[in-house]
């Protein structure tokens, strides 16, 4: 693919609002995970909760979208001058030429969970329940589009935990095909009882903060986040800008909730990202792993990484900091990859103490300063949905 510049990016998660707290946490190897006190969840697990998300107020005109997920979306949009960057793209290209591609797994399903507790004697849902603008998968994409006043093509991608990585791939195809000149891509997923009790039912929740690649790792910590990037054509950005260089997608065709044991689909996705970027394995300096912290996920991904990169490439999972933000994870970790490239460091892995000797990739528990030119970010989801993204900088003026 032709490289696309990242004109702006931002993330809001349990690490804080906007990029500054994320930068600090990545450098200091700080975790934002805390004992779960979310809503009425009674589960012995840790979560990564966005502080103050319930206090966010949506603009009056969009009040019907009000729910935790869209509040997180709103909070995220307000950070790091992201809105102003989008406004500049609109001024340049027109609102109809700026697209929106948002990844989410559960959107605002929490609103329906709460409404089911408020059913009347006949079982009907309360009158104030707005399915379309809260629960429905498209609601957050619709919110972002309305909120930013964009008229370009718009879609929600919902492939579980690869959703918002795949949002980058879709947006890149759209710009390449001439459907848009710029695209707001992102991922928003927020805590809800469906995912907390759902992962609990699969016995995939860790009772401690998650420990990717640790010998004693025993599951995930769920997080929530809103992360965005503004993709523009290389010709519209200065040389040296951070850039999306390649995307790779595949399916495991194996199982609904377990990864292919050899990581075959994961490897295909990474190979696809390299091929699309015109890069070779030796060109990659850091892999931000999907690294959820379940025994089988990390083992499968390790095999895929070893098969492609051997033990030469630094890699780590940042889910010990943010938790697994599910449908937002692809966008969050795209932002993490961009921050790593920008500052020249490999993020460490809080929570990971003793590396699993059966895993062989060059996993960096402590991280540190490195010269990074190219970074690959992995996101894999239920249903065997895999996506890898390659990031770097614009080399030549287009």
């Amino acid at each position, binding site marked *: 693919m032709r490289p696309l510049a990242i004109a702006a990016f931002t993330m809001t998660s349990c690490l804080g609002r906007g990029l500054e707290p994320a930068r600090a946490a990545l450098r200091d190897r700080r975790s934002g995970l805390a004992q779960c006190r979310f809503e009425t969840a009674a589960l012995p697990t840790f979560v990564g909760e966005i502080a103050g998300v319930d206090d966010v107020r949506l603009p009056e005109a969009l009040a019907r979208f009000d729910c935790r997920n869209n509040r997180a979306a709103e909070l995220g949009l307000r950070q790091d001058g992201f809105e102003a960057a989008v406004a500049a793209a609109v001024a340049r290209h027109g609102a109809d030429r700026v697209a929106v591609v948002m990844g989410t*797994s559960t959107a605002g*399903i929490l609103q*329906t*969970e709460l*409404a*089911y*507790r408020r*059913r009347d004697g006949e*079982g*009907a*849902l309360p009158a104030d*329940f707005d*399915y*379309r603008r809260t629960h*429905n*998968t*498209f609601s957050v*994409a*619709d919110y972002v589009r309305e909120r930013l006043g964009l*008229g370009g*093509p*718009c*879609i*929600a*991608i*919902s*492939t*579980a935990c690869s959703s918002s990585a*795949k949002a980058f791939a*879709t947006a890149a*195809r759209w710009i*390449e*095909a001439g*459907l848009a000149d710029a695209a707001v891509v992102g991922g928003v997923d927020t805590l809800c*009882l*469906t995912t907390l*009790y*759902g*992962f*609990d*039912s*699969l016995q995939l929740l860790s009772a401690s903060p998650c420990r990717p690649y640790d010998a004693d790792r025993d599951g995930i910590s769920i997080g929530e986040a809103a992360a965005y990037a503004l993709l523009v054509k290389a010709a519209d950005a200065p040389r040296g800008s951070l850039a999306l260089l390649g995307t790779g*997608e*595949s*399916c*495991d*065709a*194996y*199982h*609904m*909730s377990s990864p292919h044991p050899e990581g*075959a*689909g994961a490897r*295909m996705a990474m190979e*696809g990202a390299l091929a699309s970027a015109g890069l070779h394995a030796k060109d990659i300096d850091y892999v931000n792993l999907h690294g959820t912290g379940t025994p089988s996920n990390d083992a499968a991904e390790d095999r895929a990484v070893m098969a492609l990169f051997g033990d030469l490439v630094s890699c780590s999972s940042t889910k010990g900091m943010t938790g697994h933000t599910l449908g937002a994870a692809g966008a969050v970790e795209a932002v993490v990859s961009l921050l790593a490239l920008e500052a020249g460091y490999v993020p460490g892995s809080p929570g990971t103490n003793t590396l699993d000797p059966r895993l062989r990739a060059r996993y960096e528990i402590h991280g540190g300063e490195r010269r990074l030119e190219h970074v690959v970010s992995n996101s894999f*989801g*239920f*249903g*065997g*949905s895999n996506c890898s993204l390659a990031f770097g900088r614009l080399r030549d003026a287009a």
Partner: protein
Amino acid sequence: MTLAARIRGVGLVGPGWSSWTEAREVLAGRVPYAPRPTVAPAPDALPATERRRAGKSVRIALGAGLAAAADAGLAPKDLATIFASSGGDGDTLHEICETLASDDRSISPTRFHNSVHNAPAGYWGIATGAMQPSDTVAAFDASFAAGLLEAATRVAANPSMPVLLVSYDAPYPEPLQDARPIMDTFGVGLVLDGGEAGARIAMRIADEAPTAMDDEALDSLRRGIPAARSLPLMRMLARGERGSVALEYLGGRALVVEVAP
């Protein structure tokens, strides 16, 4: 700008039709439309364990998708896929919300993994062995047009890779059905590529009202199920006509599709 592709194969299952062969007769005007509740095909392509777990959405998506692949004469495992649906599986989401509102919140693990919007895509992979890229997308009532646009951009990116679009919806049970009425289960599959065979379609987004169906019952079907917003296009294909149709898109706009048989 305009995006073009060729239609290599079609599958359709909905209220009144168990196949494209049946639907084509009605849409071409040769047989009157006789609505009857949709019978979602049995998911025979799945291994026994998964077959038992497959809900309505999975069955309709697999049925329409496999029929389109067969019509195109292509092996399902070689197709990139786009699954477009307005929402996740209604029965599953209802069961989960009901359980979570009760005193015992133990969700079944199968129900949980079936709740993801991309469950049909996951089952498709298991049934066919397809490891090609697969997207699952949503755009509320515009989900069919959004999926078609997505499929066309995939074809543009790689004209030699056939892409299967499966657009499907299944109703919620009450009380969600009241909040989001979906008339019945409906699935349409289209295999697209950038070759020389099959009807040529070219599409663009325009400020137009969506094309309606002449027949009142067919138009109420079109309006009653997001995936059935595809019907004006399917009618053109059934009749082998040249012309253009406007399919509901976002913000009061339409995806205008020019068809040349």
